[in-house]
C-alpha cells in the first residue's frame, strides 16, 4: 500500500494525466517483477482495498524509507521524528481527500472514512538545526518503471 500511494502521489505531481490507482498498481507490479518479489496486480489491488483508510500513513512511511530516526546532536529524538511522520501523513491525507484527476466523475483517492489526527492536534514546534522532516520531498519516478499507458475509458471486462 505504501509504495502504491507513493507512486500515485508522484504521478499526480508529475504525470497527472496518468495518475490513477490502476496505473500505479501496474508500476508496482512491474517493479515487483523486475525485483523478483511477489506482487501481482490482483494482490496489489486487494491490499489497496484493505488499507485504503490508512494509505496516507503507509505512504508517508514509505516515502521516508520505512524508518524513524533521531539526531541527538541537534536534540531531534524519536518522539520528534514520530511527530514529523504524523505531520507528513496529514499532508498526504489532505492531498488524498481533495485532489482529483482531470476527468469527468473523478473521485479523490482517499475516502471520507480515512483515519486522521485529532482535530485539536498540531505538530510540535520545530527547533533550529532539525533535519528537513515534517514535509514531503519531491518524488520522481524512473521512466524505466512506467508501463505504456493503457487505452482510456472503462477497462475491458474479463470473462
Amino acid at each position: 500500500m505504501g509504495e502504491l500511494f507513493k507512486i500515485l502521489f508522484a504521478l499526480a505531481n508529475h504525470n497527472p494525466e496518468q495518475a490513477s490507482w490502476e496505473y500505479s498498481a501496474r508500476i508496482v507490479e512491474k517493479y515487483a517483477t523486475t525485483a523478483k518479489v511477489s506482487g501481482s496486480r490482483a494482490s496489489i489491488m486487494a491490499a489497496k482495498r484493505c488499507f485504503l483508510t490508512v494509505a496516507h500513513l503507509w505512504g508517508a512511511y514509505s516515502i521516508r524509507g520505512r524508518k524513524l530516526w533521531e539526531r541527538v546532536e541537534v536534540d531531534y529524538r524519536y518522539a520528534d521524528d514520530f511527530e514529523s511522520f504524523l505531520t507528513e501523513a496529514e499532508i498526504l491525507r489532505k492531498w488524498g481527500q481533495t485532489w482529483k484527476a482531470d476527468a469527468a466523475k473523478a473521485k479523490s483517492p482517499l475516502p471520507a472514512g480515512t483515519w486522521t489526527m485529532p482535530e485539536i492536534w498540531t505538530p510540535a514546534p520545530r527547533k533550529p538545526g532539525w533535519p528537513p522532516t515534517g514535509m514531503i520531498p519531491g518524488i520522481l519516478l524512473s521512466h524505466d518503471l512506467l508501463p505504456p499507458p493503457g487505452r482510456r475509458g472503462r477497462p475491458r471486462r474479463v470473462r
Partner: protein
Amino acid sequence: MPVLPVDYPEPFAAVLGTMLYPNEGEEAQRRAFAAHYLAEPIRRFEVAGGALAYNDLSRIVKDGGARLDDLDQRWWGGWGSCSKSCSH
C-alpha cells in the same frame, strides 16, 4: 473520520497497530498489536530500573488477548502488496 489513537501510553505502537488493522471489526487486533509490540521494550525498561505507571501497564496487558495470525501478511500488504487474509 476515525481518529488515530495518539492518546495511547505509547502512541507509535498504537498508530502502527491501526496501520496494520485499520478496518471495522479489527479493534481488538489493533490493540493487541500495540500490546505485543511493547512487551519487549517494557521488559528492557524495567530491567534498566524504569517503572511504568500501573494504569498504563494494566491497560497494555489487558489489550493483548487477540491472536494476530496474519501479521506477516499485513506487514507485506502495508508495505507493498497483498494480504490474502484481508477481504475488505
